[in-house]
């Protein structure tokens, strides 16, 4: 069971990376407007 001492900290590090990515995305303004991009995605013809 001592594998837990490696796996769990590893999982926590992964979670930390995910949270870090979210914080980065938020600071970039990715969540400022969640309504318009859905219209943009299907229309990009050029």
């Amino acid at each position: 069971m001592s594998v837990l001492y490696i796996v769990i900290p590893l999982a926590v590090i992964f979670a930390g990376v995910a949270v870090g990515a979210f914080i980065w995305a938020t600071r970039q303004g990715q969540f400022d407007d969640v309504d318009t991009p859905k219209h943009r995605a299907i229309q990009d013809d050029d």
Partner: protein
Amino acid sequence: MPVDSIVTEHIAACAHCGEPVAVRGPHPPEAEHYCCSGCETAHAVIRSCGLDRYYALLREDAPTDARSRGTGRAYAEFDDPMFRSLHIKRGGGGVCWMDLFLSGVHCAACVWLVERLPRVVPGVLEARLDLRRAMVRVVWRDDQTRPSAIAAALDRLGYAPHPARDGAARAARKQDDRAALIRIAVAGACASNVMLFALAMYAGLFDTMDPRHAGFFRWMSMGGTLVSLLWPGRVFFRSALAAIRARALHLDIPIALALFAGGVWSVFTTIRGHGEIYFDTVSVLVFALLVGRFIQARQQRWSGDAVELLFSLTPTSARRVSPEGVLDVPIESIAPGDILEVRAGDSIPADGEIVEGTTDLDEALLTGESRPVAACPGTSVSAGSTNLSGMIRVRVRATGEATRVGRLMRLVEEGARRRAPIVAFADKASGWFTAGMLALAAITLIAWLFIDPMHAVDHAVALLVVTCPCALGLATPLTLSVALGRAARRDILIKGGDAVERLATPGVIFLDKTGTVTLGSLHVRRWAGDQAARAVAAALASGSAHPAARAIAAFGPRDPRLVAADLRETTGGGVSGRVRGEPVVIGSGRFARSLGLDFSADMQAAEASLIADGLTPIAIAVGGRVVALAGLGDAVRPDARDAINSLRRLGWRVEMLSGDHPSIVAGIAAEVGIDPALARGGLSPEDKLAAVRFAAARERTVMVGDGVNDAAALAAAGVGIAVHGGAEASLATADIYLNRPGLTPIVELVLGSRRTMGVIRRNLAASVAYNATAGALAVLGLVTPIIAAIVMPLSSLTVLFVSFRSRSFGERP
């Protein structure tokens, strides 16, 4: 003169907006038709830039609104240095950007079209539209194009641009939003990981777990919880401390107490190596509370944003007369002594005196007087009045803050400051709550010291954790934000939840007359004389923009075969022309007499009776003889009577306050069923404010109004409601804005508020009952960490479910 030629006619769809257009004469079937020149311009621009796909997208989308049209202005004021310093930001390398609010964007096709702006205006690098806020950010190279060219291009596409105001406040709100999202993300990640450890440990309670592993799990949960408490959870401690320092009651005090007790005791038992831990419950509490707060804040923000957009619609430019000619300049750059040109239909941007030209002014916004006032050189004019008929030049005496409107706005701010803030029930209860929690915890601690001293502190801490008023704190804001969201979908924009609370119990409701109970514009109320002259008069009147002529044109009936020719308009008099070859005149009695028209005794008697009834008589003469008189007046909104009756049935006393002449006010009051004794006329804005203050000191007071003259009263009332089409000042100070014409929304609002408060009370009762039960169990020592972890979120979920299930404001019919 061939004025009455018979023309063939059929109905075609406008190539841009799709509205029906009457097409005269023979035509090739493939020809395109337009309902107005604005649509024609927009269509031409879209075509020439190869953006035809817009129409295909539009068909897919099938929007319900009509496409908007531009104004055809040149937007020269966008190039003024003052405008640049106010609204345009400079990046590196000659790149500039500005935020513009666009009127008329509503669908996916609009997003597509607006974001193709770089193809329409060379030099524009990017245009990004935020559909919800109707805000576009345009980035361009300053050496390749000018701001006025960008604005004019957007206008030609059919989206009139307005510089967005309050950029700093918007940026600050954006930062707040981002910070809240980050807090939720961190709290969520901590809570879910701590829950996983907790699950493992709960499973380990039943099996046998290696004590070394158990210890490891405890330390891991402690790490997650400490991160959650010290980073996102800090907001609760900070706000509780601030409340304690200000000696105010706040629900964050008992919440912070529970988080603190649970956290500190669990850290202690973890270090000690044995005892109960509450890390899972504490971290889930932080997460749930943050989510609840975010939902609430976002809802209020949406309503605030919507009102702000309406704000940006007010004119921001003036036409200054200078030696180089007449220039559009931003309103901020005009100074006393400047000469401004004000065209018919524009609003007057500053206080001053007319130096040239005669016209009629609509001062309803300021005085509540619904009838146009004649003005000539020497007449003083106030900012906020609308110039109705002729072009005038005005010498500026005062601008901005110093104008009459500016002084009124200071009264408004004062009115808003004087209003006592409403203390939410949950905050009021928090004092009792904290005292109760601490007393119960002390009793539990002392009692268990005698029964089982080993577990006494455990039980006391369990009590503090399970009585955390998390559901209580969520109940009110969640229910309110659901109600606010549903109301907004019904075009009722509520700025804050306290207005809902105040509207739930009846009191007195003051209605403004002009623009609130009435439509606020001229309509034909009575027609005396030849009915056949109506169509002839309508044909002639449709050629003029004067409100009186527009009223007669709208009264109709419109006959497409009748076309007016030789149209001539006399400022302050009337319109003359020819219909079917016959001379026709529409104008005031004075104008008709000055032309020497045949004014029979019958017609003169009819004119006198119209004046006696408070209507403005307009003479219609055909072939040199006055054949009919139109009595113009302000018309009551069609739903006013029913709405006022409903309000009265709901227990409200309905009164009317107006700046208009008392006899007119009494007439309107009788028409809508308000006791004439409760309808007061001839009131100045200051009188209105005094009346509302007097009532507000005694009972629940609601003020409904639309104009600058109501703004101070709106701010002073318990709840201020601004109606559709109201002035900027009334928008700023009102708690609620009705984005739909008529008074029916007020009835919906009162009913909805009542239902919302019912739901809130049920929610509060449920959460208090839950806390009492959990507290009793904890005193008996029956609450273990696993029970706390299960029951705690359950209470919040109950509140969530009740809030979203409730029918506070019904769905749109």
